[in-house]
Every structure is written in structure tokens, then in C-alpha cells.
């Protein structure tokens, strides 16, 4: 159980993030869920890279066990991608709030359906 400690946390964060995206109708909360979901993947990559007793990967005669640096590099890129996604998502949420006056998914859908009904009426007349 304890050996899989990091994996359990990873999976918990992953599922919690996905759940928030699906269950919440608030656009900002959805983005928080998305961030949580993406962050869990950072853990998935980084934790196996660390070896207990391993040191930084600088070759030296004193050490024989090194941690794997590659996951860190990969995740640095993934973090940048995550930040960009979050920034863009928030920017879209701001624009949606300007256009609709709401960031609740059901209210936005309601307003769109109103517009579509009007369009259909207009097309028939």
C-alpha cells in the first residue's frame, strides 16, 4: 500500500479533476478541474524518475545511483502547456462573460436556445 503511495495520490487527483470538469457547470470551476487533471500527470511522470538514495545526474566517482532527469524536462514543457491552456481558458471565460453576462453553463445554453428559436422564427416568416 505504502509502496504505491504516489500512484494513489496521482490517481486520486486525476479522477477528482475529471469529476470536477464533468460535474460542475461553472466555467471557472471546470478550468480548475482541468488544471488539477493536468497536474496529476506531472506527478505520474516525475515520481518514478526519483530513485531512493539516487542523486542528481552529474557523473561523479562517489555516486553510483542517479535519478532520471528526463521526466523533469518533459514536465517542464507540460507545465508550460498547462499554463497556456489555463490562461487561454480564462481569457475565453472573460469573453464569454462579456458576451453572455454569465459563466454558468446552463444559463449560457438557455440564452443560446433563445437566440436559436428566434432565428428559426425569423427564417420561417
Amino acid at each position, binding site marked *: 500500500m505504502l509502496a504505491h503511495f504516489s500512484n494513489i495520490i496521482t490517481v486520486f487527483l486525476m479522477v477528482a479533476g475529471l469529476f470536477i470538469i464533468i460535474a460542475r457547470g461553472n466555467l471557472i470551476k471546470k478550468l480548475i478541474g482541468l488544471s488539477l487533471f493536468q497536474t496529476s500527470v506531472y506527478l*505520474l511522470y516525475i515520481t518514478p524518475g526519483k530513485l531512493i538514495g539516487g542523486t542528481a545526474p552529474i557523473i561523479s566517482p562517489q555516486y553510483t545511483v542517479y535519478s532520471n532527469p528526463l521526466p523533469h524536462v518533459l514536465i517542464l514543457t507540460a507545465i508550460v502547456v498547462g499554463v497556456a491552456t489555463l490562461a487561454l481558458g480564462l481569457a475565453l471565460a472573460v469573453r464569454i462573460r462579456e*458576451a453572455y453576462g454569465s459563466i454558468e453553463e446552463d444559463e449560457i445554453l438557455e440564452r443560446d436556445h433563445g437566440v436559436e428559436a428566434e432565428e428559426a422564427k425569423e427564417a420561417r416568416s
Partner: protein
Amino acid sequence: MSLAQHLPALQVVLPLISAPLAVLSRRAGLAFLIVTAAAWTAFAIAIALWLQVDLSGPVSYPIGNWEPPWGIEYRLDRLNSFMLVLVSGMAAVVLPYSRASIEREIPQESHYLFYAMLGLCLTGLLGMSITGDAFNLFVFLEISSLSTYVLIAMGRDRRALTAAYQYLIMGSIGATFIVIGIGFLYLMTGTLNLADMVDRVARIENSRPGLAALAFITVGVSLKVALAPLHQWLPNAYTYAPSSVSAFLAATATKVALYALIRFYFTVFGDAFLFEKLPLPKMMLVLSLFAMFFANFIAIFQDNLKRLFAYSSIGQIGYITLGLSFDSIDGVAASIMHLFNHGVAKGAIFLLVGAIVARLTTRQSAPPAPGFDRIAGLARSMPWTCFGIVIGGLSLIGVPGTAGFISKWYLVLAAVDKGQWWLVGAILFSSLLAVAYVWRFVEAAYFRAPPAGREAFGEASLSLLIPAWLLVGATVWFGIDTSFTVGSAIEAAQQLVHNHK
């Protein structure tokens, strides 16, 4: 090293540099010139690389001279050199069209940003096609996705914003699934180089992490492919995006994701394992049939032309995955052909629908939805536009003389080869659904009287018509001279399918 050896890097780097330059220029005209020049150069490079692969086999390019598998490798074979030609060719056609098309769709002050985003999107799609590194593939996927969200949000209708947001959420979930899958593969094999992974994956693919990696990658890529029932983001995104963006995305974005699916299935995991030991062929068959019938059926009842053709795209993706599920050289070749032929035909259609939207738009109002009532009798005032859409539609149906016929013909051959006669019936019957929605357009545009009170307007301007008709011409051309498409697709399939029986 001479310049010619660096073509694989330049293929991606030139569009990448064009984007920040376009932002720095801050002027629509200059930004347009920079990005268009980059796209045309990329198209020329893609053709040069295709010829190089044609002459001397696969090309490997170590980025920064770090030898693979340690460094990132760009690897070109039959399949992705073909994809590069499609993606860069579409960009080269769509960009000149954009100049006139976005005039009324996007506020003047953000035109230069539009070109920068299109340049970035092109970079991402080209990078996804050319790279031989799993993590690099994810990074390019995100570059193309993020710029796509911005491009969709630039549509004038406020629903473009919600469409972009919805796509952002679903696309990011898909991309994260792909990273999780790649992460599992990396944990198990210790390599990210796709070619290097092949042998090592063969040893672990039956293990639980191997299967989990396969599942995550399948779901993640299918989201980007918009394989039904994961297509929810697509109709709104294509409907409310600016016209040139709809055309570019329909022709390239889902196609490159399909390429990624083919790459992971056939190169990394290997078809011998996937299609023999797992129930994957049956699953793909069911999903493909679902897409072919369900999406084509929904398309018939759409009132907005853009949404109609968006649903038609989801249906056409079904044919492509159907070909993959056969796991035979004919089937995979049919998929690769259809990927190209459908991209060209659907690109043409969306460009021409965009021309209609541009004509219907007045200077003050937002672009109206191209509904069937609005386009009634349009063929009298816009004969070239409507005729082009009809030819594109014929290719969607698969009428002989158009590109769509060739790929559907190979698909039918592959089905017969497998002894699946009922599938031949399914392919034909679902094509009849396509007849129905194309006929709806023909009926409205050619046989209905124009609504009274609509002010007369002429044919679309030449700057919109010429790029669109280039693609219409290509649709007919690849229906008659098939040496490029069929030749490339069959050779690519021979490299991919190892499961000779």
C-alpha cells in the same frame, strides 16, 4: 551540410518563425505576406521531401545533431511525407483566401493576430506529422490545439466563444489522455523515440501498463479525431469559426490526428498484436459504422450549411477508421487515400460556403447562418460557387470522376477481400444518406425561387473563388489521375501493415 539536408527542420521552423514575426509586424498586410510566404515555402519543402522519400527511402533528421534515440528525431516515411503535402498544401490555398474572407468576419485590428495563429496552427500540424518522438508529438499537438481554440473564438457569433471553450475543455482532456498514455509507454520502455519504441513495446504490450497506455492513447487521439461518439466539440466549432478556419480545420486538423492514430496503432504497437489478440477491429468497426450512419443521418436534418457539412465530416471519418479496422493493405491504403481526398473535397466545400456567407453578410450585421431559406435560388446569382459545392458534394457521395470515388472504391475492394459483403451494402447505403444531404443543397440552390425582397448580388469575388476552385479542381484531378494519391497510400500501407495473410 547543405541546405537541402536541413529541409525537415525548415519545414517546421519557417512557419514557427512566421508567427512571432507576424505579431511584431502589427500590420495586417505585412503579417499576411509573412505567413503566406512561410506557408508556400512549407508547401514547396513538403513536395521536395516527398520526392526525396520517393527517390531514396525514409529520411531521418536529428534535431540539433543529437543522435536518436537520445535527441529528438524527425523521421519521414511514405505516410507522413504524404501528410505534409496535404497540410501545407491546404495552408497554401487557405491563406490567400483568408485575406478577403476575414475582412468582414474579424475586426480589422486583430487581423495580424489571426495570421499569427494560423501560422502557429500550421506549425503544430506539420510538427505532429513529421516528428518521430512521442513527447514532441504531444507538444506539437498542443501548439496546434491552442492556436485552433483562438482561431475558433475569433468567429463573429458569440457562440464561437462557447464552441471554443467546449473544444478547449475536451481537447485538453484528449491531449492529457495522450500524455498519460505516452507516460506509461515511457515508464515501461524507457524511450520516447517512436522507432526505438517498436521493439521494446513488443515485449510489454501484453502487460497491464501496456494495455493502459493503448487505451489512453486510443481515447485521447479519438477525441481529437472526433470519432463518434467523441465528436461533440466538432459541429459547433466548425459552424461558428471564421469560414477560412472551418475549411483549414476540416481539411487538416482531424486528419493529422488520424495520422497520429495510424502511427501509434501500426508503427508503435504493431497490427499483429492489436488486431489479432485484442477485440479492437470489432470495436473500430462498430464505431465506424455508428459514425457513418448516425452522423450522415443527422446531417440531413441540419438547416445551417456549415453545420450540415460538419456532421458530414464526422460521417466521413467513419469511412477512414473503417478502412483501418480491416487491417489489410487495401483497407489501410483506402483510409489514407480517403483522408487526403476527403480533406481536399471538404476544404473546397467549406471555402465555397464561406464565399456564400461573405455575400450574405452586410457590413453592419454579424454573418448570418447560411440556412437553406437564405440560399434559395442562389445558383442564379452565384453559379460558380454553387457548382463547386455540388462537385465537392459528389466527391462526398463517391460519384465516379471525383476523388471520393477512388477511396470508396478501394474501401469496397478491401471489404470484399475480407469477405464482408454486408459491409459493401453498408458503405453504399450510408453513401445514399450523403446523396440526401447534398440533394437538399441542390434543391434549395437550383430549384427554389429566390426569396422576394432579397437584394440582388453577384458572384463571389475572384479572390475567394480562385483558391476554392483550385481545391475543386484537385477533387476532380485526383478522381482521374490517381498516381499520386493511390501510389503513396498503397506504398505507405505496405510499410505499415506487417500482418500479411
